[in-house]
């Protein structure tokens, strides 16, 4: 309102920036928003690291493995993926949908597909930070992982696909406040009885068949099979995660509302 006209005028010069630059900008913004948000940091870094340190101090009688960190660290890696790909992404996306952010960005050269790519890359980048930090702390606590780390990364990526699909399914259908409540409640529930940190075979036997079919147990147990017991890629866990990724991904594609 200070000047009556814009110096250069508003004459149209419409042209999209190069695709790579657009995706890079949006991905960087997604990462920045996650790492600068206090609640997201609590969820993605503080809780996993506190649990990692706390549980590694448990006596052998409780963990039934010595040192405890060998049994705990794989579960914390699984928890990290769950917190970022599922809870964090669902809550952020739910509110972005409510405020029309998804709708607006979808009408720019970024587009809906670009937004999804940037969100996925952002989740993977935040997970990389988590894996590095969790592993570094675990090593200082005396962690000696077994198995092939490449297969562990493959399972982490599959877990990301499964949890992202479920998170976006919730964010694209429920109201933002409901998404916040559900995403947090499911996170807590899975943390305790989802087979992430506490192996499914330590839970009440009535729960075990149900829990084993959850992506949380598949990821947690699959990582323990490899990194704790030195096994190869666990095909059962791969199957469970793939089914969740495909089914929830299909449902998300059909039901997701952008505004």
């Amino acid at each position, binding site marked *: 309102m200070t000047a009556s006209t814009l110096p250069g005028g508003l004459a149209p010069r419409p042209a*999209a*920036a190069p695709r790579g630059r657009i995706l890079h900008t949006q991905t960087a913004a997604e990462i920045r928003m996650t790492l600068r948000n206090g609640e997201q940091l609590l969820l993605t870094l503080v809780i996993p690291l506190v649990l990692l340190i706390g549980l590694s101090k448990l006596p052998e009688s409780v963990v039934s493995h010595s040192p405890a960190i060998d049994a705990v660290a794989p579960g914390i890696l699984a928890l990290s993926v769950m917190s970022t790909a599922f809870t964090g992404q669902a809550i952020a996306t739910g509110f972005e949908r409510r405020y029309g952010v998804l709708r607006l960005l979808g009408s720019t050269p970024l587009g809906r597909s670009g937004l999804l790519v940037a969100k996925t890359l952002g989740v993977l980048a935040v997970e990389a930070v988590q894996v590095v930090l969790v592993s570094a702390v675990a090593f200082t606590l005396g962690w000696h992982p077994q198995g092939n780390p490449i297969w562990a990364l493959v399972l982490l990526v599959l877990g990301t696909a499964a949890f992202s699909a479920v998170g976006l399914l919730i964010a694209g259908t429920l109201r933002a406040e409901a998404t916040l409540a559900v995403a947090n409640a499911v996170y807590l529930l899975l943390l305790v009885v989802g087979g992430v940190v506490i192996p499914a075979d330590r839970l009440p036997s009535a729960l075990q068949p149900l829990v084993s079919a959850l992506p949380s147990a598949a990821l947690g147990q699959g990582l323990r099979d490899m990194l704790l017991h030195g096994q190869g890629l666990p095909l059962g866990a791969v199957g469970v995660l793939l089914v969740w990724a495909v089914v929830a991904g299909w449902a998300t594609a059909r039901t997701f509302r952008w505004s």
Partner: protein
Amino acid sequence: MVLDDLRLSYGDTRALDGLSFEVPAGAITALLGPNGAGKTSTVEICEGYRRPDSGSVRVWGLDPQRDGAALRARIGVMLQDGGIYASARPVPMLRHLASFYAEPLDVDDLVARLGLDSVTASYRRMSGGEKQRLALACAVVGRPDLVFLDEPSAGMDPQTRLAAWDLVEQLRRDGVTVVLTTHLMDEAERLADRVVIIDHGRLVATGTPTELTGGSDVLAFCAEPGLALDSLRSLLPPGAGVLEASAGAYRVEGVVGPAVLSAVGDWCSAHDVVPRDMRTGRRSLEDVFLELTGRELRA
């Protein structure tokens, strides 16, 4: 932009029912209609955001569904609910969007122009007027050919509204095509080169504001309801008619000149009628809308 026979239903609700019209380039077109008339659905289809059940839209010959990527580089959108990150501040948000375009506007100039240069609050803490000015800035920062504004001045304070109108008029001067939805008559009358009146998902009328409101004048007055108008009709000169638009609100339409004034005056004195709030003038868009749909716009 050409819209042809658009139909769209949400469940049992028919939002658009065979809507067709054209939007001329380089002009401001206002879609006018009450809430629920189908304005927002229409705009969403033109942006490629929503797919119609049937019918077609072509924007510079492009299909918004099939050629979405090409179209998205050329349009700017202002949403009613903002579409801005709650934690975003004006300049970083605009720089972020600007980076999606090859030749965006200068962000510093744009925020200065809209009085946002001193705003350092995050979006969630901005005033309503600041939020809407930022949403408008987001719509134009990419130097679009075509700008969609959804109820741009709904809830704006008067100062913000004038700033927004000023920017929209500059868009037209600089050759940008503008499509705005509104239910505010003064906004449509002030800005629009072309008005498209929509109700129940159908085209009711289209034309320039002058075409729509021209043709006849009006003399309106209030008096006690239920007056017998036949005697007045016989006094009026040819080309003028009278009706009771709503209880106690009378309207004489046609060529309203001295002959009509004198006829109405004679009739009032003969029948001992005391007219109140008598006014003469051109029909307003509100009058046109009421006449065409029998509904108040604000309803």
